[in-house]
C-alpha cells in the first residue's frame, strides 16, 4: 500500500536537509541564481521585497521626521519630493507586488498538488527582470546630481502626472529611470501573471476540479487576470512616456496639444485595479488562515469565489474616482461614484463570510490569527473612508489632502501589510522548517496595531483640517502641529515593531522550534509534505476528493468528500 499513500502528520517519508545545497558559497550562490524552482524563486521574491520594505520604511521615517514640527528643515524640499516618490513607488512596485508574487510562487503549486509552475524558466525570467527594475530605480540615487547622468532619484510622485514628467519640466534622467523601472517591472509582473493563470488551470492534481481549488489559488488567478488587463496599460503608458522623452513624441506634451488628463486616465485605469491586485492576495491569505485558526471550514466557498471575481471586474470600472477634481461631467461624477460604491457589495459578502467562519469557531489566538482579526477591523474602516471619498462632492473637499493619505494607508498597511505579516507567521514554518517565536510575535503584533492606529487614525484629522499631501513643511498656525507630532510618533512605534519582526525572522531561522510538516493542523496540500518541501514537492503526486484534502485524510470517519 505504501506506493498509494502519502504521509501526513508526524511521519514524513522524505527527510530533507535544512540547507538544500552544500558546497562552497560560490556553488550555493550559483544554485540560487540559476534556479527555476518555484519555491526558491518564491523565497527570493519575498526576501527581495522585505529588503525594500526596510528601505521604503526608512524613507517613510525621513518623511515623518521632516513633518514632525512646522518649519522643519531636516530635509530640503527637493529631497522631500524624492523621498515620497521613492517611498510610494517602492512600496507598490518593489514591496507589494513582489512579496505577493513570492507567496503565489511558493504556495500555488503546492496547494494544487503540482511539482512546479507551468513555465519554470519564464518564472525565473520574471523574477530577474523585476529585480533588475528595483536595482535600476535605486541606481538613480547613486552619484548625486549628474554623476553618470543618474541625477538623484525621481521626484515626480508615484502617479507621475503629466506634463511634469516631460523633458521640459523634468530634465536629467531621473524620470527615465522611473519609467524604465516601471516598464521592466511590468513585464515581469505580466510574465508572472500568465504563469500563475496557466499553473492554476492546467497543473492541478487529480481530482482537483474547479470547485475544489483552494481559495488562495482562485484569488491568485483573479489577481493575475487583473494584472493582465491593468498592468499592461501602465506598461504601455511608460512606453509612450519614453517615446515623448527620447524621440520627441507628444503624447503628454501639453504644448503640442497632448493631454495631461489622458495620462491621468491611463494611470488610474492601472492604478485603481492595482489596489485590488494588492488586496486580493491579502484576502487570499485571510481565506486560508481564518478557517484554520477558527477550526471551521470557510463559510460560503462559492460566494467567496464569486465575490472575488466580482471585485476584480467592478474594480476595472471605477478608476476615475481618483479624478473627480479634474473636472468631469456630472454624469461622469455620478457614474464613478456609483460604480465605486458597488464594490462594497462583494466586499461586504466577503467580510460577512469571514465573520461567519469565525462565528462559533474554536478560535486560537496565535500570531497569524491576531493579524487576521486586526485586518478584518481595519479593512472595514478603510472601506468606509473609501465610500466617503467616492462621493464626488465630498471628494472635492478631501482630494489631495491627508485624509486620502490616511485612507489608502489604512488599506495598504492596515489590510495588506497586516495580512502579509499574518502570512509570514503562518507559512514561515513551511518555508524554513522552524517556527517564529510567539512572544516576539505578540510584541510585534501589539506594537504594530498601536503604532498603526496612532499614525493613521490621527492622520485623517489634519486632512479634514485642510492639510494637503506632499507638502514638505507647514505654517505653525494651522492647528496641525500636535496632530502631526502624534502621527510621526506612531510611525516610530511601527518602525520598532518591524525591527522586532526582522529580529524574530533571523533569530528563529537558527533558533526556532522545529516546525514539522503541519504545525497548525491545517487542511490544504502544502502541509502534506515536509517543511521545507523537497525539490519535487510531493513524493507521490496527490489526488484529492474535496476542498480540504488533509482534513479527509486526518478524519477518515468524517471526510468532507462524503458531502460533495
Amino acid at each position: 500500500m505504501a506506493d498509494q499513500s502519502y504521509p501526513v502528520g508526524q511521519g514524513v517519508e522524505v527527510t530533507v536537509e535544512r540547507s538544500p545545497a552544500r558546497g562552497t558559497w560560490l556553488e550555493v550562490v550559483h544554485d540560487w541564481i540559476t534556479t527555476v524552482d518555484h519555491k526558491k524563486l518564491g523565497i527570493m521574491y519575498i526576501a527581495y521585497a522585505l529588503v525594500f520594505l526596510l528601505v521604503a520604511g526608512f524613507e517613510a521615517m525621513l518623511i515623518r521626521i521632516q513633518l514632525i514640527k512646522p518649519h522643519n528643515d531636516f530635509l530640503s524640499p527637493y529631497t522631500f519630493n524624492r523621498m515620497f516618490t521613492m517611498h510610494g513607488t517602492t512600496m507598490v512596485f518593489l514591496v507589494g507586488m513582489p512579496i505577493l508574487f513570492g507567496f503565489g510562487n511558493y504556495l500555488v503549486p503546492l496547494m494544487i498538488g503540482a511539482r512546479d509552475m507551468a513555465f519554470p524558466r519564464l518564472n525565473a525570467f520574471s523574477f530577474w527582470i523585476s529585480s533588475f527594475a528595483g536595482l535600476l530605480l535605486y541606481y538613480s540615487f547613486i552619484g548625486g546630481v549628474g554623476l553618470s547622468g543618474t541625477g538623484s532619484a525621481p521626484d515626480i510622485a508615484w502617479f507621475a502626472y503629466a506634463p511634469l514628467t516631460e523633458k521640459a519640466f523634468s530634465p536629467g534622467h531621473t524620470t527615465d529611470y522611473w519609467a524604465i523601472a516601471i516598464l521592466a517591472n511590468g513585464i515581469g509582473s505580466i510574465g508572472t501573471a500568465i504563469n500563475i493563470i496557466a499553473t492554476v488551470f492546467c497543473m492541478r492534481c487529480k481530482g482537483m476540479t474547479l470547485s475544489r481549488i483552494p481559495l488562495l489559488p482562485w484569488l491568485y488567478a483573479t489577481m493575475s487576470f487583473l494584472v493582465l488587463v491593468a498592468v499592461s496599460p501602465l506598461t504601455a503608458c511608460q512606453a509612450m512616456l519614453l517615446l515623448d522623452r527620447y524621440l520627441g513624441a507628444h503624447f503628454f506634451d501639453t504644448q503640442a496639444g497632448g493631454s495631461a488628463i489622458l495620462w491621468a486616465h491611463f494611470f488610474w485605469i492601472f492604478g485603481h485595479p492595482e489596489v485590488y491586485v494588492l488586496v486580493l492576495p491579502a484576502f487570499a491569505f485571510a481565506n486560508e488562515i481564518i478557517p484554520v485558526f477558527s477550526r471551521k471550514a470557510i463559510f460560503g466557498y462559492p460566494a467567496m469565489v464569486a465575490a472575488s471575481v466580482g471585485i476584480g471586474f467592478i474594480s476595472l470600472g471605477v478608476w476615475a474616482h481618483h479624478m473627480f477634481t479634474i473636472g468631469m461631467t456630472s454624469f461622469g461624477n455620478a457614474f464613478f461614484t456609483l460604480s465605486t460604491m458597488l464594490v462594497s457589495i462583494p466586499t461586504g459578502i466577503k467580510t460577512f463570510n469571514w465573520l461567519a467562519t469565525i462565528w462559533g469557531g474554536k478560535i486560537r489566538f496565535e500570531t497569524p490569527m491576531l493579524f487576521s482579526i486586526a485586518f478584518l477591523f481595519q479593512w472595514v474602516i478603510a472601506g468606509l473612508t473609501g465610500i466617503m471619498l467616492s462621493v464626488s462632492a465630498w471628494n472635492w473637499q478631501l482630494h489631495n489632502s491627508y485624509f486620502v493619505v490616511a485612507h489608502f494607508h489604512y488599506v495598504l498597511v492596515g489590510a495588506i501589510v497586516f495580512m502579509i505579516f499574518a502570512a509570514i507567521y503562518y507559512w514561515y514554518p513551511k518555508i524554513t522548517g522552524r517556527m517564529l517565536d510567539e512572544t516576539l510575535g505578540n510584541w510585534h503584533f501589539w506594537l504594530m496595531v498601536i503604532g498603526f492606529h496612532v499614525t493613521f487614525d490621527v492622520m485623517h484629522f489634519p486632512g479634514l483640517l485642510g492639510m494637503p499631501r506632499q507638502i514638505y513643511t507647514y505654517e505653525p498656525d494651522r492647528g496641525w502641529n500636535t496632530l502631526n507630532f502624534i502621527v510621526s510618533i506612531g510611525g516610530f512605534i511601527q518602525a520598532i515593531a518591524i525591527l522586532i519582526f526582522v529580529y524574530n525572522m533571523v533569530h528563529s531561522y537558527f533558533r526556532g522550534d522545529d516546525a514539522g510538516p503541519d504545525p497548525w493542523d491545517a487542511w490544504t496540500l502544502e502541509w502534506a509534505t515536509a517543511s521545507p518541501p523537497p525539490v519535487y514537492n510531493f513524493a507521490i503526486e496527490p489526488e484529492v476528493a474535496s476542498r480540504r484534502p488533509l482534513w479527509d485524510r486526518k478524519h477518515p470517519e468524517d471526510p468532507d468528500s462524503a458531502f460533495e
Partner: protein
Amino acid sequence: MATVPLQHDQHDAEWTLPSRGTVAMAALITAESSIFTIFVVAYLYYLGRDVHGPTPKDALEVPWFYSICLISSSFFIVLAERAIEHGKIAAFRLWWAITILLGIIFLYGTGVEWHSLIVDHHLTIATNLFGTTYYSLVGLHASHVVVGLVMMLFVLVFSLMGAVHPHHAYRVKTLALYWHFVDAVWIVVFTVVYVVGR
C-alpha cells in the same frame, strides 16, 4: 509512519486539464489586447487635435494590397495547422512558407508607407500628434509582426531540418493563435487609422 490511502476510486477515470500552452497564449493575448487598446484610445483621442499638419487626410493612402496579404495569411496558416495535424509535412512547409512570405510582404508595405510619409510628407513621430500616435500604433503592430515572423522562421528552419513532426501540431497551433491575434489587431488598426481616421 502515519499514512492514509491516496487513491479515490471515483477518480480512476481520465483526468484531463486544459493545455498550458493555449491558456498561456490566451493570457498573453489578453495582456497584449489591453496594450493595444491604450494605443488605439490615444490615437482616437488625439484625432484632429493637431496644432499643425500634416493630417491623416493629407498623408495617408489606404494600404489595400498589403492588408489583404496579411489577412489572407491567416487562411494559409490554418491550412498549415491542418496539414501538420494530418502528418503532411511537405504541405505544412508549403503553407507555412506562404504565411511567412505574406507577412514579409505586409512588413515591406509598412516600410514603403513610412518612407513616403517621412520623405514626401515630412511626417515623423515628433512632427505632431498625428505622427506621434500613428507611428506608435502602427509601429507597435509592426513589431508584433516581426516577432511573429521570427518565431515562424525558426519553425520553418527546424522543419526543413526535419525536426518538426506531427506531434508538434499543438505547438504550431499555439504559435498560430498568436498570428491570428496579430491579424485581428490589424483589422482594428486598419479600421481606426484608415477608415475612421481619414
